[in-house]
């Protein structure tokens, strides 16, 4: 009956979203008066999941699963969900979780709601709130199947401490070759750089920066703040910045704590993609730019003057507050 939660780690270390999904699963378990079982794969310090409310951790240690292979992971999680008799399975909204969830849904004959932003409004009928129309609206979705799968939007629930035992049991899933039809040949991951998916703060530049040669100050700000860099669609279309930095409706969604937009006017498609960020700052010369309607804080001014000055101030602030 326990609520099952799939936790993600990287090189053994749990991601922050792992603790967020466990916190969320705890919330559901409390609503349904049941326990939380976390699934961890090749992770360290599984006891830390107990801090956020995991009663039990099913730990898979397997060389076969050292690389993320969606079908094999789906088979393993399905097996555990069946063993546990879980009625609710919770995942994050990472690229891997979104790869995995639909496969799980078929295996468990479960209804799946992605981009969920809050605890269920009711457990029976099981109804959740999720974003739709790329953050331009919310949608209340009822899941009618016996087993339900929830993809939790990043930063929507937060971390909530609820100390539990997190008793670890190890598990060896029965895997077969058919689950390895897609073979990972190579992984090319940016090192020493915060990714948009993991970032608490994102610093983003637009066409107002006039050319790729002017990104130094954006990167500097990102460095100072420990932030990821991003850009608007025209900037990636013109090849000033890589596609992987394009945020917006057809690019990556951003759900950071702080989003700083420099020289971005705020087209509706861009705003949709970054809307889930908690605090938004805009720096733009044009006071009529639509971004000012979406932002919390705004500076009407020339980025080339404001950003270098702001960087100095931020450095000072960081030096005094770390």
């Amino acid at each position, binding site marked *: 009956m326990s609520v099952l939660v799939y936790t993600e780690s990287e090189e053994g270390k749990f991601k922050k979203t792992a603790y967020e999904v466990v916190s969320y699963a705890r919330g559901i378990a409390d609503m349904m008066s049941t326990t939380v079982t976390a699934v961890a794969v090749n992770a360290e310090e599984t006891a830390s999941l107990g801090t956020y409310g995991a009663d039990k951790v099913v730990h898979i240690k397997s060389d076969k699963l050292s690389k993320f292979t969606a079908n094999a992971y789906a088979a393993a999680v399905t097996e555990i969900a069946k063993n546990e008799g879980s009625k609710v399975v919770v995942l994050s909204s990472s690229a891997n979780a979104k790869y995995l969830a*639909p496969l799980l849904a078929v295996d468990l004959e479960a209804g799946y709601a992605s981009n969920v932003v809050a605890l269920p409004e009711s457990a029976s009928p099981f109804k959740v709130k999720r974003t739709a129309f790329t953050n331009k609206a919310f949608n209340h979705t009822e899941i009618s199947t016996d087993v339900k799968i929830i993809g939790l939007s990043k930063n929507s629930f937060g971390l909530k401490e609820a100390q539990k035992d997190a008793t670890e049991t190890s598990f060896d899933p029965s895997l077969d070759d058919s689950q390895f039809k*897609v073979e990972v040949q190579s992984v090319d991951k940016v090192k020493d750089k915060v990714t*948009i998916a993991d970032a608490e703060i994102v610093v983003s530049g637009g066409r107002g920066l006039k050319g790729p040669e002017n990104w130094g100050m954006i990167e500097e700000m990102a460095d100072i703040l420990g932030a990821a860099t991003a850009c608007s669609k025209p900037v990636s279309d013109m090849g000033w910045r890589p596609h992987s930095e*394009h945020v917006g409706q057809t690019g990556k969604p951003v759900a950071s704590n702080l989003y700083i937009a420099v020289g971005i006017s705020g087209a509706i498609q861009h705003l949709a993609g970054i809307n889930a960020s908690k605090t938004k700052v805009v720096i733009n010369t044009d006071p009529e730019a639509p971004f000012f309607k979406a932002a919390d804080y705004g500076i009407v001014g020339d980025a080339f003057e404001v950003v270098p000055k702001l960087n100095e101030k931020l450095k000072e602030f960081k030096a005094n507050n770390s």
Partner: protein
Amino acid sequence: MKILVCISHVPDTTSKINFTENDTKFDTNGVQFVINPNDEFGLTRAMWFKEKQGATVDIINVGGPETEPTLRKALAIGADTAIRINTEALDGFQVAKELSAVAKEGNYDLIIAGRESIDYNGGMVPGMLASLLGASFVNTCIGLEVDGDTATAVREIDGGKETVTAKLPLVVGGQKGIVEESDLRIPNMRGIMMARKKPLEVKEPQGASTETSAVSFEKPAPKGDVKLISPDNLDELIDLLHNEAKAI
């Protein structure tokens, strides 16, 4: 190689989103519908396979007759034939089940769908379809080559990308990067004329069940006014970000 491209019929990215009937239905009034952008990137890649590797390209949609102009547009871009499964698309699982029935009959080597539609953002149809067909699956696909019975695909992951090989049949969830924005094609007059004569087959649905239902909608609460800060007083911004927003 037989390719099937799944086409979602969605509101244009610039659409204002409103709801009617007590916030239970999307208000299509004044909304222009287009090919889902993630699907259009995939369709364009399919055209490349058609031109360079002699593939045939069918397109498919689950929806009512109102989706046909969108299918005609995809035919005008260069797809060979269109299939419309004549039922309202209610949830991702139902759509995947309807698609899988037709896809099974068609024995496709490669099925390309967008990683998600920009309306409901469910992000589940490609994976579910692959699973129902027992096919290989690569999501968030930003590069795709096919050689014989093996595909090499690039998958976008958080913070980078990975290269995978997969045996056909394969389903991919495509997105920008599978082709570049500049590769997208605007149908020309000849394409539009030809598209009128291309077959558009209407198939009756299996009556697949739904697992979820979108009960109601709401718009985000209106935001308070922006706090403007003078460029000469950046300390104020830092103070607000630190003490008010608690963001730094």
